[in-house]
């Protein structure tokens, strides 16, 4: 398993480089240009000057190589500098966003906290809700609990977040006035009161996202449990006189986790990708809002950097999932 992991990690480097190239070409090739952000009142010759100053009219391979250098050489140096107070990166050009003319990495770091607290906790809550519901729904298939769970899950999945978000705002902010409809990113949690404010402002976006995540995961959990509950080894275990608790939670659950692990491993990177619509509805302004803004404004350095970090996470977590498969089912061998 260790050699497998090392081999996969080494293999990940060329894979990621290739992915970065494909992303770069794709984003560059996509129609749309940073000019769409410039009002029509600005004359064409001034527009061209602005584009030139951004460096957006350089040949594509020059820009790609420059980005590679900045991402893999300059930015790590900046990180080292900021940790040790050294000055290796002095005078080097960092990856700079076309929209705000500021270093992309700084903005990403600035956006991390709200994204992780809102989208991250929504994911964790989603998983915590979904797994027990999935298990119990499968164990008592077609009971009223299962039917209700199915119903809610399907509603949660088929009603999009732009709709649930607005409904929650209308009910809880406009009518009841319990929660704020706008997320305050400057709020610092220092004492109990500010903590309560933080909880309040997180309540609605987290609820919307958690419902969506839980719907999906609970369906996979349930179906996988159902498959395994019908297997022969379950009958054997029961026949041996094992308690239901041990049969269900130890034998069946462990064998049912493979698809759930896959789904969760695919889901965790999306936490870093943010939740585009929910963030927009509640003005969380996390990484999702950053990405969609950058895409709309054709802010290539920003899109490229964000998507690449996202790609790294995807590759990492898929590797983790593969390793977990081996632990859940020792028969799975990769060598």
């Amino acid at each position, binding site marked *: 398993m260790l050699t497998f992991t090392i081999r996969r990690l080494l293999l990940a480097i060329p894979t990621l480089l290739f992915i970065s190239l494909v992303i770069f070409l794709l984003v560059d090739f996509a129609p749309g240009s940073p000019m769409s952000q410039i009002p029509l009142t600005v004359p064409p010759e001034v527009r061209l000057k602005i584009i030139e100053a951004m460096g957006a009219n350089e040949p594509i391979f020059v820009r790609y190589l420059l980005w590679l250098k900045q991402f893999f050489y300059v930015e790590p140096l900046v990180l080292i500098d900021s940790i040790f107070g050294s000055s290796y990166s002095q005078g080097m050009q960092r990856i700079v966003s076309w929209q705000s003319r500021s270093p992309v990495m700084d903005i990403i770091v600035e956006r991390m906290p709200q994204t992780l607290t809102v989208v991250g906790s929504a994911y964790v809550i989603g998983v915590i809700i979904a797994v027990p519901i999935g298990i119990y729904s499968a164990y008592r298939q077609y009971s009223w609990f299962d039917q209700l769970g199915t119903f809610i899950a399907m509603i949660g999945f088929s009603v999009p977040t732009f709709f649930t978000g607005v409904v929650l705002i209308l009910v809880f902010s406009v009518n009841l006035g319990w929660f704020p409809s706008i997320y305050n990113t400057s709020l610092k949690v220092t004492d109990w009161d500010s903590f309560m404010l933080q909880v309040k402002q997180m309540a609605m976006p987290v609820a919307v996202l958690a419902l969506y995540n839980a719907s999906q995961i609970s369906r996979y959990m349930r179906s996988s449990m159902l498959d395994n509950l019908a297997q022969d080894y379950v009958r054997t275990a029961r026949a041996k006189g094992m308690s239901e608790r041990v049969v269900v939670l130890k034998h069946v659950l462990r064998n049912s986790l493979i698809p759930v692990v896959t789904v969760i491993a695919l889901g965790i990177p999306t936490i870093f990708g943010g939740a585009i619509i929910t963030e927009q509805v509640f003005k969380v302004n996390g990484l999702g809002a950053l990405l969609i803004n950058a*895409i709309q404004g054709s802010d290539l350095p920003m899109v490229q950097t964000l998507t690449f970090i996202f790609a790294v996470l995807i590759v990492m977590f898929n590797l983790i999932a593969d390793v977990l498969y081996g632990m859940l089912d020792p028969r799975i061998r990769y060598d």
Partner: protein
Amino acid sequence: MTDTSVIEKPRSQWADVWSQFKTHKGAVAALTVFVLLILFVTIGPFIWTVDPSYINPNGAEMIRTRNKPPSWQFPLGTDQLGRDMLARMMKGGQVSIAVGMVAMLISIFLGTLVGVTAGYFKRLDGPLMRLTDLFLALPLLPLLLVMVMLFRDPLARAMGPESGTFLLIVFAIGVTSWMQAARIVRGEVLALKEREFVLAARSIGTPSRRMILRHILPNVVSPIMVSATLGIASAIITESALSFLGLGFPPDFPTWGRLLFDGVDYIQQYPERVIWPGVAISLTVLSVNYIGDGLRDALDPRIRGR
């Protein structure tokens, strides 16, 4: 279930499946609902013959008939331009159900193909999973913009604007949503491959094709079913996002997703505007889910025997 003392005519497997399916109350109810929905969107427009995009060219009349609540003249009310909601729901359903089903089939087909191949053939696992990683990492919006830019006009010229757009949309949604199914199926296949019955089948020299079709595929049906149900919902919603970005059907062409999206602006004044498409989408997804449940039970010989 069958009385063993009477010798019956041997029944085909599909008759067995059907009789098992019939015992699943939820599935039968869901099938009924689904058939009704299909009838609503296909036969409906022949009975209710109002033009879904008709706007009264007389301004005063238009103002008088806009934003109407449900009535005999407009059973589901009218929208902000006085268009009949019932006719729009029917027309929109045709597209949404078709897009949802076809895009789901494409994505499930691709996902299962990639997943089974990667899980079963060790040599293909690496390349195929890296391909999956690539697709997962690609930013969706630029990808769709590029696809639309490249293929919309040629397709529209070859097949007419509507079927060209339809093909482009289902293809775009299918091609960008198969990855999750592929990862899940692969994970299952990896585990299945080591199970006793597979080893047994392999030891008697079953060829790979038969192994996959007879032994592997039937055992990954349940996660595929779940992906399929979830896939329909997300395809319908994605279609609305596409038209919202100007990448889908022409702007006056109703679809459920789009009606829902447009309705959100009017949710406070005319909540029924979001309720109709919301209920329709949820009903479709719910019924497909239950049909899927029933089918899975009916296809599983262990359950069928009970």
